Each structure stands twice: as structure tokens, then as C-alpha cells.
């Protein structure tokens, strides 16, 4: 499936091909801190289909819970997270795109959640939290 997305300010756009079966939620503490939320929601894009305009800032995270260094890309103007990939020059094998920035995000349903041991306790109970259609 073809996907496309942009950061909040529009400086960075991405496109590529994904398999919707590979969408996942990650509850690791790095994803909680770097999203400022409870988890991330990711989809891998093969490097040979991935295209980008604009120039993200790369932060190399070396203390991931998994132990692997990762290159995290975000927009230097609006801070929107774009992807993570393996560190190094040139095209990488795969880019883990942050699904929240994609135009097709409503069609990307997570199939698995990982690092559930650090999931926020309330995250499986959102149906019972009072809901407002707009804001209150």
C-alpha cells in the first residue's frame, strides 16, 4: 500500500510502500519519552521505496532498551518525528515511519504491540475514559 505524509509545518514530506500487516505499537520507554505520549505507532517502509523531501535532523540514540543504536529523524522547524532507521550514510534497508504523520493513518491498524512490559497501565482501558467529541 502506498503511503505519504508530512510534518506539521510541511518542511518534510515522505512517501513509500508499506505492508499494512506490519503496523505496530511500541510501548518502550524511549518511544514514550520521544513521542511525549504513551506509545508510538510505526510502520516499516523498505528503503528502495522510500522518498523524502526536506532535511530532517538526525539524533542517534545509543541506549535503546533493545541495545541497538538507532538514527531518529525529526523536523528541525516543527519537531515532528518522521522515522527511525539504522545509523550510517546513504539509503538504509528500512525506515520505521511514525504512522501518526501519514495521510493514510486511519487505514493503518496496528497488528501487534511490543515492549508491552512498559505499557502505561491505563492504555488498555481507554474505552472507559470520558470522551468529548471536540474539546472541554
Amino acid at each position, binding site marked *: 500500500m502506498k503511503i505519504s505524509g*508530512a*510534518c*506539521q509545518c510541511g518542511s518534510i514530506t515522505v512517501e513509500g510502500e508499506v505492508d499494512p500487516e506490519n503496523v505496530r*505499537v511500541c510501548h*518502550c520507554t*524511549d518511544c514514550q*519519552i*520521544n*513521542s*511525549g*505520549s*504513551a*506509545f*508510538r*505507532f510505526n510502520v516499516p517502509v523498505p528503503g528502495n521505496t522510500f522518498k523524502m523531501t526536506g532535511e530532517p*535532523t538526525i*539524533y542517534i*540514540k545509543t541506549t535503546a*532498551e*533493545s541495545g541497538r543504536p538507532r538514527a*531518529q529523524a*525529526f*523536523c*528541525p*522547524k*516543527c*519537531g*515532528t*518525528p*518522521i522515522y527511525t532507521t539504522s545509523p550510517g550514510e546513504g539509503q538504509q534497508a528500512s525506515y520505521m515511519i*511514525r*504512522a*501518526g*504523520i501519514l495521510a493514510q*493513518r*486511519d487505514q493503518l491498524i*496496528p*497488528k*501487534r*504491540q*511490543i*515492549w*508491552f*512490559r512498559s*505499557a*502505561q*497501565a*491505563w*492504555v*488498555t482501558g*481507554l*474505552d472507559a*475514559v*470520558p*470522551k*468529548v*467529541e*471536540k*474539546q*472541554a
Partner: protein
Amino acid sequence: MRIDGACQCGYIKFEGEGDPDKVWVCHCADCQAGTGSAFRINLPVTGASFRMLSGEPTIFIKTTAESGTPRAQAFCPKCGSPIYSTTVGDGPKPSYTVRVGLLRQRDQLTPKRQNWFRSAQPWVTGLASLPRNEKGA
């Protein structure tokens, strides 16, 4: 309740006071894009108690929020971690809406309300039945 937090790379550190009954989830489209995730979790911290202990965030002024209110969004220029949003302008503000995921006390901050539920991702209320791995996969 006293809260403190730091961005992922440690450049930005801050502290303040927030009321745990005010924690909310925001499902608006801006929060989905700004986190790259499904929603934000927010806690208002009073301006009088909010202190930046280290670092200087980059400010992005978002003018097209669904609510129509322009907001100043702060993030770490080195690692991109979102820090807070507040009203636009110079000087101290009455309130800072802090991103709960980067607080050390996040495990104690349970959302009491969900805003902009009309744009919530349909699967967010079904995580209890989604297959899970305790670690990575």
C-alpha cells in the same frame, strides 16, 4: 503534585506542579501528527511553578489547530522530544501543557478525559485484545 522530566537526550530538563486530575488525552489531528502517534497525553503545569532547569527548546507556532487557537509548541532541538505547548508571546505564561510521556512520574498520571474523540483512531480503545510481546519482536 510535583513533576519533573527530561527530553530523550537530556539537554532539556524542567519541573513544576500539576494536578493529576487534569491529565487528558488529545486525539486531534495536530496531536497525531506532532507525536507521530495516535494521541498526546497532556498535563497542565501552572506558569508560576514551571521551571526550565536546563536547555533551550525550539518553539514552533502552530496556527492551524482544529480549535483555531495558535499555540507555541516547544521541542528539543537536539533529539526532537516534544516538551510542552503554551500560548503565543514573550515572557512567562499562565500555564504550560506538558507532554506526559517524558515525565518521570508518568506511571502515576492516568488520563481523566479524552478530547477531540471524533478524530480518535478506531483501534485505540481495543488495545486490550491486540497481540502483545513483553519485549521487542
